[in-house]
């Protein structure tokens, strides 16, 4: 181990997150591989090690015998300071080698607040942050993840974005890079070839031309590059590589458990939800394969918890039989099975009763809006009756803590809708009074609100975010109307939501704002410990960019969006139709009731969407 590191590590909190060496990590002989890839997660080890996507792609890329993919996470502040003071460059966990020695830096960007950390990690590696300043082919900086579906804010920094699911696409790109490295291609020639791979977006090939009002007129597209880049998907979830021996962290991480992915996509089509649209079409794994993989994962990791992941677990067609199969394995071994993202209906409660035999602590529901009118407008298919009935079953079954999540500032929201939240909480409390099994234990109902952030590729991509003042007014209105002492009200600060709104629908001009924030010390900004609103405001000011342009402006129907070069499958016309339905407060049926021909099925090239 590096001598300097040996002196630093005893001084920092939780040093085990900076050492690597965990069970199941993949090490190779660096002299026997042709490409070394640093897989960078722009957040802490604890967050990154809980990310299923990272785990999958770490394994698929390492399946290539000529590639060694290693993990890199952003150090917490104390470690960051120590590394800076002692001149220790950012290193990869498996080998301990500085990542400047690697051929590829691959970033997984799941959320916008990680952007400044991406720049910081490049800088900690000693690599120029601007793509244009990296003239050589290597190191190549690539990025993927949900936030990459609007690649424009990070366009100046990243050489190649990989859009969509990476299991196949990453390895296709690495195969091309292997040839390019051997044959010594110039960077430009490589980028041109790479742009022919499905899902590859080379930002330097798409030059935005702005109107006088800073809306985009059009993109100048480099000759030969595709007009639109279509995201990649895995057509057959039963055939795709899935790692059965994931790394077992030697220290505590956020989600310390086995993750089993039921299906990709969502049948629901909530109009505020980006994930529900960008991960379509619906593709499920077979229950037999899942049960087999789940058992293998538990055996190979020694984890005592397993979670079934998806955007809406109740919509997995074979949930009941899968749970029975897994419970048969888990119960005798005292392994906990958990099931997040359940809908508030009877079926879900039946499953909950079966899987949660002990520790009936808390249940969380996300009605998102307080009135049926607004829930219909956002296409959240939950009725008050459903919710209260589910709460009744929960209280009868012994649960006594209920959390309810809502958004404030949704399109078409009125004060009446907000008062509906307080009323709904009262109804839940009333339900407890009527049906609780054991009233002596008391009840705790928590209402949380956050400020709605309009997202690209969702039906609300044209919408304006409410101002922070207006959000606070709404918060006070709600707070003053929640009177019961068993109901606790928490609200998220609107500052982060405001910055998120500028970034999520940002264009290429946001690059200089992000760079200013990073230069002023911004990193790990998803953490309230490190987020600074004033730093962002100053960065906007210095860059001469108006944040309200991104956050608070209602877009025209036909405005060219910064992410228009990206085709996620769902048609823009479908999104607009859904938006119009919202303004009529009309529900759209979920995919299982009636296919809305959203467009995502075309990605399956004749295969069948499981919607």
């Amino acid at each position, binding site marked *: 181990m590096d001598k300097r590191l040996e002196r630093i*590590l005893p001084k920092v909190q939780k040093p085990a997150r900076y050492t690597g060496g965990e*069970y199941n990590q993949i090490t190779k002989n660096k002299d026997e591989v042709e490409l070394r890839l640093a897989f960078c997660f722009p957040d802490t080890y604890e967050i990154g090690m809980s990310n299923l996507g990272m785990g999958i792609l770490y394994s698929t890329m390492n399946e290539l015998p000529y590639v060694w993919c290693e993990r890199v996470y952003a150090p917490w502040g104390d470690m960051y300071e120590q590394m800076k003071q002692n001149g220790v460059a950012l290193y990869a966990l498996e080998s301990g080698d500085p990542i400047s020695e690697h051929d590829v830096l691959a970033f997984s960007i799941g959320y916008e607040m990680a952007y400044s950390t991406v720049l910081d990690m490049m800088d900690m590696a000693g690599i120029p942050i601007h793509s244009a300043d990296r003239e050589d082919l290597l190191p190549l900086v690539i990025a993927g993840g949900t936030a990459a579906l609007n690649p424009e804010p990070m366009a100046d920094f990243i050489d190649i974005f990989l859009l969509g699911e990476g299991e196949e696409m990453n390895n296709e790109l690495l195969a091309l890079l292997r040839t390019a490295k051997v044959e010594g291609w110039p960077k430009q020639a490589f980028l041109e070839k790479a742009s022919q791979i499905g899902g590859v977006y080379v930002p330097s090939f798409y030059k935005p031309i702005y109107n006088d009002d800073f809306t985009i007129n059009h993109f100048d597209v480099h000759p030969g590059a595709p007009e639109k880049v279509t995201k990649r998907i895995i057509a057959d979830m039963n055939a795709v590589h899935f790692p059965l021996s994931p790394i077992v962290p030697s220290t505590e991480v956020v989600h310390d458990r086995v993750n089993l992915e039921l299906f990709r996509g969502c049948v629901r089509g909530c109009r505020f939800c980006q994930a529900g649209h960008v991960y379509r079409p619906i593709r499920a794994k077979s229950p037999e394969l899942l049960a087999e993989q789940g058992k293998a994962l538990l055996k190979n990791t020694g984890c005592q918890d397993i979670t079934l992941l998806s955007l809406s677990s109740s919509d997995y067609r074979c949930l009941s039989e899968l749970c029975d199969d897994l419970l048969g394995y888990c119960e005798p071994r005292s392994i906990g099975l958990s099931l997040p993202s359940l809908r508030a209906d009877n079926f879900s409660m039946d499953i909950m009763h079966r899987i949660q035999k002990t520790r009936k602590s808390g249940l969380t529901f996300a009605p998102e809006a307080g009135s049926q009118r607004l829930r219909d407008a956002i296409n959240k298919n939950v009725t008050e009756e459903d919710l209260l009935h589910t709460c009744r079953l929960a209280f009868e079954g012994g649960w006594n803590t209920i959390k309810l999540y809502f958004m404030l500032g949704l399109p078409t929201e009125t004060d009446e809708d907000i008062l509906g939240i307080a009323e709904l909480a009262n109804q839940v409390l009333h339900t407890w009074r009527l049906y609780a099994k054991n009233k002596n234990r008391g009840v705790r109902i928590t209402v949380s609100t956050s400020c709605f952030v309009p997202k690209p590729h969702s039906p609300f991509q044209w919408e304006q975010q409410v101002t922070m003042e207006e959000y606070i007014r709404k918060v006070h209105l709600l707070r003053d109307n929640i009177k019961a002492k068993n109901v606790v009200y928490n609200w998220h600060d609107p500052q982060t939501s405001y910055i998120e709104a500028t970034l999520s629908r940002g264009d290429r001009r946001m690059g200089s704002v992000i760079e200013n924030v990073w230069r002023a010390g911004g990193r790990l900004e998803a953490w309230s410990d490190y987020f600074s609103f004033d730093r962002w405001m100053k960065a906007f000011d210095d860059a001469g960019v108006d944040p309200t342009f991104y956050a608070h402006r209602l877009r025209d129907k036909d405005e060219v969006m910064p992410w228009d070069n990206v085709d996620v499958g769902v048609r823009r016309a479908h999104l607009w139709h859904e938006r119009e339905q919202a303004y009529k407060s009309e529900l759209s049926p979920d995919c299982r009731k009636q296919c809305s021909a959203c467009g995502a099925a075309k990605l399956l090239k004749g295969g069948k969407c499981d919607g």
Partner: protein
Amino acid sequence: MDKYIMRFSKTGRAVYISHLDLMRTITRAFLRAECRLKYSEGFNPHPNISIALPLSVGCESVCEIMDFKMLEDMPCDEIKSRLSTQMPEGIEVLEVYEAERKVKEIKWLCVSGVFEYDERDAAAMAEKLNEFYSADSVVITKKTKRGVGESDIRPAIKEISFEWLDSDVRMQAVISAQEPTLNPELIADALRQLAPDIAPDFAKFKRLEIFDENMEPFR
């Protein structure tokens, strides 16, 4: 068989795994190895394992011991061979045997140390260190739960010697393992408090062996 003891080493990168994390890491290794540990009863069952003399983060050891109970008897060698492929880098199972003695009988620890000096001549230090620790008492101030207190660490050191080797000073000591427990870090801390001129810029330690009160290796 009632109780087993696993003797293991913790070296290299594994030294940064904290005591609590190590307990979980080892529990998982047992699960992977399909060696079924006996769990406590009650609302929140946990495995009945206990690692004697918790090691501080950063300290190496080739003489850690952990006692545990199994749900069903299994030959010691079988447990050892099953576990040995299940450990993270730096944790090595040295031996598994039936527990006959109580961990309380461990009295002394043999510890080595490397004292690094960046700007000063390490060659000249060994002698001064030997001289410093030839005193009968070394009283340091220590933060305790009740505030700052004074403590004499010298009686907890049975033997100590320093020599110059490969540009560092090497320490070898026998210190009290229990009642009182002496953290070897205090040997360097005492210098920082009382004799900063000869205090190292960095010191690291390694546990070599555990002994009973008769200075027989504890097994």
